[in-house]
């Protein structure tokens, strides 16, 4: 939920995560990025088995540990302490990314700075200003079967983030399948198709959405 030109409307971070969770299917192996994507784990539908992969070398991420369970050797890719499950397994980083690059992970949810109407994604640096590095994001968007981006619809200065062409260095070229923002959901069936508007958040009109989006999309 963000303030847009004085209008407070749209989905909260948690609602965005819940919407992303609707993309999950039973039996999926899933990698969740840092931030809002991490919250998706809280919204896995009852009765559905989803196995979370952490690119630092774990399958089967459990919930945050109880205080007495905290283990410095057991963290997720966001460096947060986590717990294990009976089905958990550990492996090294080369194996972890062999899995990711090899297409064994069904779905990933990532944050973004910019998404272009052709599916390009930028989320790792602003030249000269902010450089965190791509971490595992470039591997994830190259290898995972389905790429879900969850982001605020507009930047802090109000400028659109779903745009005709990325202005920032890319994380991946033509990789995004679904865009979930606080205002809307866009998706496309394949990487040759344009994005289509799938949902608009309550309290937002299609016209308001168009004003806040510079990318072309099918309505």
């Amino acid at each position, binding site marked *: 939920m963000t303030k847009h030109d004085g209008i407070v409307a749209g989905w909260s971070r948690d609602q965005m995560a819940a919407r992303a969770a609707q993309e999950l299917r039973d039996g999926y192996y899933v990698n969740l990025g840092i931030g809002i994507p991490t919250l998706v784990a809280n919204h896995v539908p009852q009765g559905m088995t989803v196995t979370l992969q952490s690119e630092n070398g774990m399958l089967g991420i459990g919930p945050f540990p109880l205080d007495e369970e*905290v283990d410095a050797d057991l963290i997720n890719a966001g460096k947060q*302490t986590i717990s294990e499950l009976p089905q958990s397994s550990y492996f*090294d980083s080369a194996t972890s990314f062999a899995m990711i*690059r090899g297409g064994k992970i069904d779905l990933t949810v990532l944050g973004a700075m910019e998404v272009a109407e052709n599916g390009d994604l930028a989320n790792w640096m602003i030249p000269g200003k902010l450089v965190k*590095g791509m*971490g*595992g994001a470039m591997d994830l968007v190259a290898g995972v079967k389905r790429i879900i981006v969850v982001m605020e619809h507009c930047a802090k200065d109000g400028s659109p983030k779903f745009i005709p062409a990325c202005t920032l260095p890319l994380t991946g070229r033509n990789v995004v399948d679904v865009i979930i923002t606080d205002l809307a959901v866009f998706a496309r069936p394949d990487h040759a198709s344009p994005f289509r508007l799938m949902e608009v958040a309550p309290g937002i009109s299609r016209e308001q959405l168009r004003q806040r989006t510079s990318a072309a999309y099918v309505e």
Partner: protein
Amino acid sequence: MTTKVYPNAAAALDGLLRDNILIASGGFGICGIPERLIDAVEASGVKGLTVASNNAAIDNMGLGKLLRTRQIRKMISSYIGGNKEFERQYLTGELEVEFTPQGTLAERMRAGGAGIPGFYTKTGVGTLVAEGKPTMEFDGEEYVLERAIVADVALVKAWKADTSGNVVFRKTARNFNVPVATCGKTCVVEVEEIVEPGALDSDAIHLPGVYVHRIICGAPYDKQIEFRTTRTTDVG
């Protein structure tokens, strides 16, 4: 056989460190980092290092110490977030950074240890990472050629080693330590406990002894946590 076990980190690195060498270091954040060995690199005073490591721990811990002392000329890393000094040195141009996607970095190290000088990957195609690198089309898709990393010295943190060099890791502290170990011309491992051959399950060795040249016991460890996140109740 000449023993692989050394009394301490300085002894284990004796004769291996020179200015301008390439060091590969294990660890992810501050989890599974070879802190004793890094301290010994700091104490040695070698300079102009290139360090291949996913990140550089945090400010003034692990490789963060070698950034502070300016012993590192260049990092080959996927992530500098979380270490202000790392980011500062990069943005001011004091430090060279070869940004490498995390999986590409792990695979470049594995390739270096596996006699594979280069491999093709989809990761980074169409991005800055692929600039200047040869590409090739396979089955209609474009891939970029990535080169192996072979390190002069590999620094590894593990859980246990037997005296023949077989090594096991614990949980997510394994991370980059395996590919790092394999890509080193010489591999030095610090562990929490050294055991006799036969004490480790031969079916469950993460790093066979052939990869391990020198071992120290670095215990006791006071392992730090970057983000301590907990829940208060049992999950229903």
